[in-house]
């Protein structure tokens, strides 16, 4: 019985190891940056060192267990120390570790060298989405999970990139040193893309740095790695790496969009336009906490549907959306959403799910509030 089990475990282990070597989805990805390749080789080096030590140590152990069974008539010896042997087996691991520390130190120093970047991106963690801001370019946007809730709830078949897809990925040029500055608007998050070997915590009130130089165009996926509340599992990172020319074109288009959005602030918006836009904004930004039907998750996330106190006080409603509520999960949207989206979502919240205030909030109103004059 026991022998069969031991044999079975060994077969499974060896089979696992072989598949391990072949299939990359069992192992750390090699990645697409110089750093990620160094990290991968460090990982494999220490892994094989552990395997060798394991084979020697467990080999000695199983040999002893097999050879010195009492059932086979083994008689116990009575030695209980041997200083030379002990010094030997203390020194060997020490030397191995020193040998390990040298390449690890070199890689770490490389990772910490954030100087002379070509592009700086400020990454802000929010509960539960990422905000990317191209410093000095005036381009900033949210990146939300785009997997429909029907797939999460099991009512629809799941896509290939289930939970690892977003509405707007971070777009980066290849072969450029990109510096990431991470921070957070609320709790601690951690921005992680395995293919770059970049993982950096986003701390409220503090700035952290990391960098990468992507070598291959493509789409790279990661996730938030630090528990950040309810939807921690639902804030993926998607990076779309492209050639410099494509990136420049993309950035220009982005700036164009921002400009035209600014223009549309001044015109008079109709109720149904605002409701349509508001529903879109609500479902990507607000629904994670306040829920699809505005029912909220009390006590942490108050209901919006039938929230009479809020519906009676338009000023307060606008104030909360613009400025957030301190010491709660409600963030300020004045700096992160444009006036059209803010006006639309407030209009939507005041006229959906049985809230029938009839209020129409114009983007120009919001714009006026945000300007100092």
């Amino acid at each position, binding site marked *: 019985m026991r022998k069969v089990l031991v044999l079975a475990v060994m077969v499974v282990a060896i089979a696992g190891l072989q598949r391990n070597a072949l299939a990359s989805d069992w192992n750390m990805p090699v990645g697409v940056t110089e750093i990620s390749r160094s990290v991968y080789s460090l990982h494999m080096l220490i892994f094989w060192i552990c395997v060798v030590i394991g084979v020697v140590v467990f080999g000695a152990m199983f040999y002893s267990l097999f050879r010195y069974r009492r059932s086979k008539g083994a008689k116990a010896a009575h030695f*209980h*120390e041997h*200083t030379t042997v*002990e*010094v030997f087996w*203390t020194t060997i691991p020490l030397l191995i570790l020193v040998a390990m520390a040298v390449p690890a*130190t070199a890689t770490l*120093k490389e990772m910490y060298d954030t100087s002379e970047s070509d592009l700086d991106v400020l990454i802000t963690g929010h509960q539960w989405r990422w905000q990317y801001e191209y410093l000095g370019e005036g381009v900033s946007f949210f990146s939300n999970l785009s997997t429909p809730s029907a797939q999460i709830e099991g009512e629809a078949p799941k896509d290939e990139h289930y939970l690892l897809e977003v509405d707007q990925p971070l777009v980066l040029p290849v072969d450029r040193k990109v510096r990431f500055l991470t921070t957070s608007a609320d709790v601690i998050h951690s921005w992680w893309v395995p293919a770059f070997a970049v993982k950096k915590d986003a701390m409220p009130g503090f700035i952290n740095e990391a960098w990468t130089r992507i070598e291959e165009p493509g789409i790279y996926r990661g996730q938030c790695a630090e528990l950040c509340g309810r939807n921690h599992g639902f804030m993926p990172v998607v990076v779309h790496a492209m050639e410099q020319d494509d990136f420049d074109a993309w950035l220009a288009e982005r700036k164009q969009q921002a400009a035209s959005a600014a223009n549309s602030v001044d015109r008079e918006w109709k109720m149904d336009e605002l409701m349509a836009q508001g529903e879109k904004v609500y479902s990507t930004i607000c629904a994670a906490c306040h829920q699809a039907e505005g029912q909220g998750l009390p006590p942490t996330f108050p209901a919006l549907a039938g929230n009479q106190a809020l519906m009676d006080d338009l000023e307060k409603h606008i104030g909360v959306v613009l400025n957030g509520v301190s010491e709660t999960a409600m963030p300020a949207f004045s700096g992160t959403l444009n006036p059209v989206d803010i006006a639309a979502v407030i209009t939507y919240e005041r006229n959906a799910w049985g809230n029938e205030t009839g209020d129409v909030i114009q983007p120009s109103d919001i714009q006026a509030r945000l300007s100092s004059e």
Partner: protein
Amino acid sequence: MWQVIKSVLAAFFGVQKDSRRRSDFEHGKPIVFIATGVVMALIMVGLVVSVAMMAAG
């Protein structure tokens, strides 16, 4: 004192001869060993810090 330091070093290394520790425990005062241990720990921390600073360049 040198004996104490040697014994504590052996403790850090994790290897000690039986005869050696016998004499430690028969002649030494525990407080001396603990104090030396703490001091040596601090020295070791200092040592590793300086190695780290050197490595960081």
